[in-house]
């Protein structure tokens, strides 16, 4: 039965009529529409077609048998993912963190009990029809959707039906604030026969198509390619079933175009980087992930009433939810009584009537809840009601997939690990302790929990005992990555599993088949993205150690070595060195690697940091404090760190580079002071050299730099200054040469520099200065009353100066 290609009539009503009366049973739907679900189910049960073709990725057709299996209970989702290892779409580095990290594309086709597609497939299975998904698979749609939109994730949507001038005009005429409100008022709650609803939707879609669509735009957004692909399947089904009816369930926007579309199958070869699965889903994920799937709790309540054959399912669902909101709000301490619920219900009915809605829509329901339950300003009294309403609208159902469909490997592995490590997955709040030094299984459990935390699985709660300094959120224990709590020998985790764990595992499913491999993949991607940032790379190495991702150690160390060779930033290098020191501190608990390899990397980091010391001369003012902290840490590690091989870090290199730094003429005074402080502490320079440098600053044009010089000196040579009379004397002498005005100008900086000493140390310094002052004539014979008066005046003057 071959027909010539038809042209779509210009008149939208005529076009809808042609589509409605075609040999093919075109069922135009809106996704997640209870009314369309009834339409699809009843139309198919009435027509008993030989084939039911549904909008969905054609490579998921094999999953339909599992989808319609009695043991499968929506919400479920078809999840298709593609890892672009060969950068076929040129987006690695654009839609992934770095060019070396493959972009991961995902497509979601969520299905709930009131999804028209699901009901169509169920009805099709019931009448023994051939069942087929007919839309482009993920891989073919990536350039059309993911790349064009610049987003690696995409879910099925009704975008084309919802946007445009036609809809704006319609919604304004209906007084509806958005498409959802318009659709519910116009299609969901209006009583119509199955056929009348089918035709009404086709007319609506024809109008949208006639007013708002440009062929070029349809080509550009991939609609033309998708429709050609779908049309190819329709033609194939008609050939296969020449005497039977073919039913086609697609978004209404496509239904009115497919009869006139040119068939063309999009060639897509299956490859090992594409995975398509059927997975259990949850209402919370639906609410969070898809604009379309908003308020699944409401849809669920409506569908339950429809399934019971209720006469006014939307009204019944609204009443149920309004009562639920009242109970939930009351549980949260809000003022909500049964009388309020009665008021809310009456308001919902009255609003529906005023808006000419045949039954209470979601908009009526929300407005009524706000009207009757919120007793005060929205910010004060509205929060509890808003939360209760959001919870009621979202619902909390979780789907199931028949065991025959298999399970997502990552999800299965997670639960297997959870059982092994006795991690609760019922939602109860638990504190879990890991003794890292004594119990081997605890170390494994610790690694598992660190991996889960790294993958951001929503299974953690807040620890109760917030008084602990080391406590941070869900975890108390040694944290290798931040360096906090390293003295602790046990870990304590606050856990509370939630349903959202499953959704998160789904999102991560293309990272690997186990929690460990997923964490390793994510970490590897981060390593690539870290590039030549040695501090970030080292931090990732620490993370790998904390998660006991042994297989990643060599790779992480390679990345560190690679970054060390290219990174010349002193701050990052000194930070990386400190991270390595932490790694050694942690080694006892997790002796998992060859120390020599780690030591070699550490030595490389150290050397590179030393070599970059002269770069401190050009440091910006704002960066100086951090850089000097890094310099202090570098010196400390150089002097104290024992390497496992017994060798020491090359102190001579450090000294040599510090001398090189001091020879640079433009070094910041604080850097110069710090360098001299280090070298004095190492016995490399004399006090006179420091005195000379300080005098040089004081006599020069940058006199104000003396405070910074001393600040730098005290940062690194603090202890030396406290014990060396000679050093204190030369500093005192240099300052004594200052005129009053110069001293006054320097005073704030000097105070800041001396603030590094604690009061008892300041007393000791003052005593020393006083002893030095004893050499002066004025102090001989004790303090005269004139001197005391003069000192008081001086003090008052200093105070005034400082106050201004």
């Amino acid at each position, binding site marked *: 039965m071959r027909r010539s290609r038809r042209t779509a009539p210009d008149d939208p009503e005529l076009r809808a009529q042609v589509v409605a009366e075609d040999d093919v049973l075109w069922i135009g739907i809106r996704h997640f529409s209870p009314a369309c679900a009834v339409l699809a189910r009843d139309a198919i049960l009435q027509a008993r077609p030989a084939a039911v073709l549904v909008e969905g990725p054609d490579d998921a057709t094999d999953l339909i048998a599992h989808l319609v299996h009695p043991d499968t209970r929506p919400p479920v989702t078809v999840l298709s993912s593609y890892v672009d290892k060969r950068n076929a779409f040129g987006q690695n580095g654009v839609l992934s963190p770095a060019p070396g990290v493959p972009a991961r594309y995902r497509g979601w086709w969520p299905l709930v009990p009131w999804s028209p597609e699901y009901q169509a497939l169920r009805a099709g299975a019931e009448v023994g029809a051939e069942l087929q998904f007919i839309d482009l698979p993920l891989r073919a749609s990536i350039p059309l959707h993911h790349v064009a939109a610049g987003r690696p994730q995409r879910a099925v949507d009704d975008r084309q039906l919802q946007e445009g001038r036609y809809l704006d005009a319609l919604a304004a005429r209906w007084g509806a604030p958005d498409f959802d409100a318009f659709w519910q008022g116009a299609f969901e709650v209006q009583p119509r026969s199955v056929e009348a609803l089918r035709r009404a939707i086709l007319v609506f879609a024809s109008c949208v198509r006639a007013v708002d669509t440009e062929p070029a735009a349809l080509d550009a957004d991939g609609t033309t390619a998708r429709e050609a692909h779908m049309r190819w399947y329709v033609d194939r089904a008609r050939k296969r079933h020449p005497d039977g009816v073919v039913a086609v369930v697609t978004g209404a926007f496509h239904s009115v175009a497919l009869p006139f579309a040119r068939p063309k199958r999009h060639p897509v070869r299956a490859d090992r980087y594409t995975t398509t699965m059927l997975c259990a889903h949850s209402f919370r994920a639906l609410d969070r992930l898809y604009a379309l799937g908003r308020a699944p709790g409401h849809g669920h309540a409506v569908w339950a009433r429809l399934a019971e054959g209720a006469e006014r399912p939307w009204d019944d669902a609204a009443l149920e939810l309004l009562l639920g909101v009242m109970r939930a709000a009351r549980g949260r301490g809000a003022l909500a009584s049964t009388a309020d619920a009665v008021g809310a219900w009456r308001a919902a009915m009255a609003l529906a009537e005023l808006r000419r809605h045949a039954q209470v829509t979601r908009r009526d329901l929300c407005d009524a809840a706000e*009207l009757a339950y919120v007793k005060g300003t929205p910010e004060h009294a509205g929060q509890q009601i808003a939360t209760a309403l959001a919870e009621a609208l979202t619902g909390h159902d979780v789907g199931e997939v028949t065991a025959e469909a298999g399970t997502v490997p990552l999800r299965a592995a997670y639960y297997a690990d959870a059982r092994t490590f006795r991690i609760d997955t019922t939602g109860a709040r638990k504190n879990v302790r890991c003794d890292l030094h004594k119990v081997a299984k605890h170390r494994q459990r610790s690694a598992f929990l660190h991996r889960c935390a790294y993958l951001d699985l929503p299974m953690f709660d807040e620890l109760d005992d917030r008084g602990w300094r080391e406590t941070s959120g869900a975890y108390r224990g040694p944290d290798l990555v931040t360096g906090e709590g390293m003295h602790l020998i046990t870990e304590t985790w606050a856990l509370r599993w939630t349903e959202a764990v499953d959704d998160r595992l789904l999102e991560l499913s293309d990272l690997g088949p186990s929690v460990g491999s997923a964490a390793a993949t994510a970490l590897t991607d981060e390593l690539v993205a870290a590039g030549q940032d040695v501090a970030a790379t080292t931090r990732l190495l620490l993370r790998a150690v904390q998660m006991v991702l042994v297989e990643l150690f060599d790779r992480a160390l390679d990345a560190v070595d690679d970054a060390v060779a290219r990174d010349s930033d002193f701050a990052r290098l000194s930070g990386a060195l400190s991270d390595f020191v932490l790694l050694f501190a942690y080694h006892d608990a997790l002796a998992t690697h060859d120390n020599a390899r780690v030591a070699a990397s550490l030595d490389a980091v150290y050397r590179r940091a030393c070599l970059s010391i002269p770069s401190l001369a050009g440091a910006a003012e704002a960066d100086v404090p951090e850089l000097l902290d890094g310099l202090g840490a570098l010196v400390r590690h150089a002097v104290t760190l024992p390497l496992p091989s017994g060798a020491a870090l090359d102190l001579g290199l450090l000294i040599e580079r510090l001398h090189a730094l001091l020879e640079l003429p433009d070094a910041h005074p604080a850097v110069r002071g710090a360098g001299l402080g280090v070298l004095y502490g190492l016995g490399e320079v004399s006090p006179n050299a420091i005195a000379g440098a300080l005098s040089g600053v004081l006599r020069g044009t940058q006199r104000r730099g003396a405070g910074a010089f001393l600040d730098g000196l005290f940062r690194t040579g603090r202890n030396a200054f406290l014990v060396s009379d000679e050093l204190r004397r030369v500093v005192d002498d240099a300052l004594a040469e200052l005129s009053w005005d110069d001293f006054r100008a320097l005073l704030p900086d000097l105070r800041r520099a001396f603030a590094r000493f604690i009061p008892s140390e300041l007393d000791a310094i003052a005593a020393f200065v006083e002893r030095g002052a004893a050499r002066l004539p004025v102090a001989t014979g004790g303090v005269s009353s004139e001197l005391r008066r003069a000192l008081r005046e001086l003090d008052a003057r200093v105070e005034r100066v400082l106050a201004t």
Partner: protein
Amino acid sequence: MSEVIRLPAERRHATELAALAHHDHEPRPQGWALSPRAVEAFIVGGPALELEVDGAVQSVPITRKFYGHDALVQRAIVTLASDRGLLLIGEPGTAKSWLSEHLAAAVCGDSMLSVQGTAGLTEDQIRYAWNYALLLAEGPSLRALVPAPLYLGMNRGRIVRFEEITRAPHEVQDTLLSVLSDKWMAVPELPGDDGLVLAKPGFNIIATANTRDRGVNEMSSALKRRFNFVMVPPLRDLDEEMALVRSQVEELVGDSGASARLDDEILELLVTTFHEIRGGATTEGTLVDRGGATMSTAEAVSVGFHASLHASFFGSGAVEPRHLVHNLAGTAVKDSDDDRKVLRDYFDVAVKPRAAREQGAWAAYWAARDLLR
């Protein structure tokens, strides 16, 4: 020019109300003059309706009286048709009283049964008082009773408006408790049936409260339960606000007998200033200080009206930017230095760049900034 300064809404829009009633075939709640849909049309506007006036058929435009969310109006109407009172809350100057007046005019044709909440409000100003001469002469009787708005509203089945309810003392507020729940009021001084006022269908209360003053959160829980709260937010849409300010300024100028012309570009200066300061940011995204001044639409109307009078009496009749600035200083910022600083800062960060970029009215606006000091 009108003989009175301002007519109540039901008399100002008497023709519209008559036209709506004439064409209103929808069911009406008991005691209502119009159906809920006709009330909604009266408030938010609708297609023109034909009405025979003095033997001639004329087309009566149903104008929009309230600018804002239509859903808000629907919620208010639905509440009035229920057994609960309506409490309109929001910042000062968001047209709560305006909405209340027009709702009352449409629902029962009478917006005059109004009580103003003040700290000195007493129960007898709401319920009833006595003509003491008659009371002493004849004893308690209906003749000696002086009905207050609540008594009248219940007796006639009308809407009673309670402005700024939260400013009234708590014990006075609580007078409404039994009235709202039981729909009757006792007059214990009167014997027999006269001692009981049973509310007739159509009776309800519209209260207003602003969120800047003593808050609605301090109302007793018992009274809160008897009201449905409807929040009236400031206008977010600049075009809507311009339309509102224009219509109200023109109405006020017309009533005053003055003759002034407020061009679109001048009106835009005014409304943009209020809109942006209220929102804390300019359309270009520059953050501006909101300050404590009430930059409501009502204040914008006030500035527009005063600027028009200024232009009419002391100028050519065309409102100029300097008239706006002059009246901004006196009308919107009151006497607070902080408010004045907010405006001066706004001129520096928002008006100045526009003056440089667009010239025209914005440049004249900027040039007049010294009048703010």
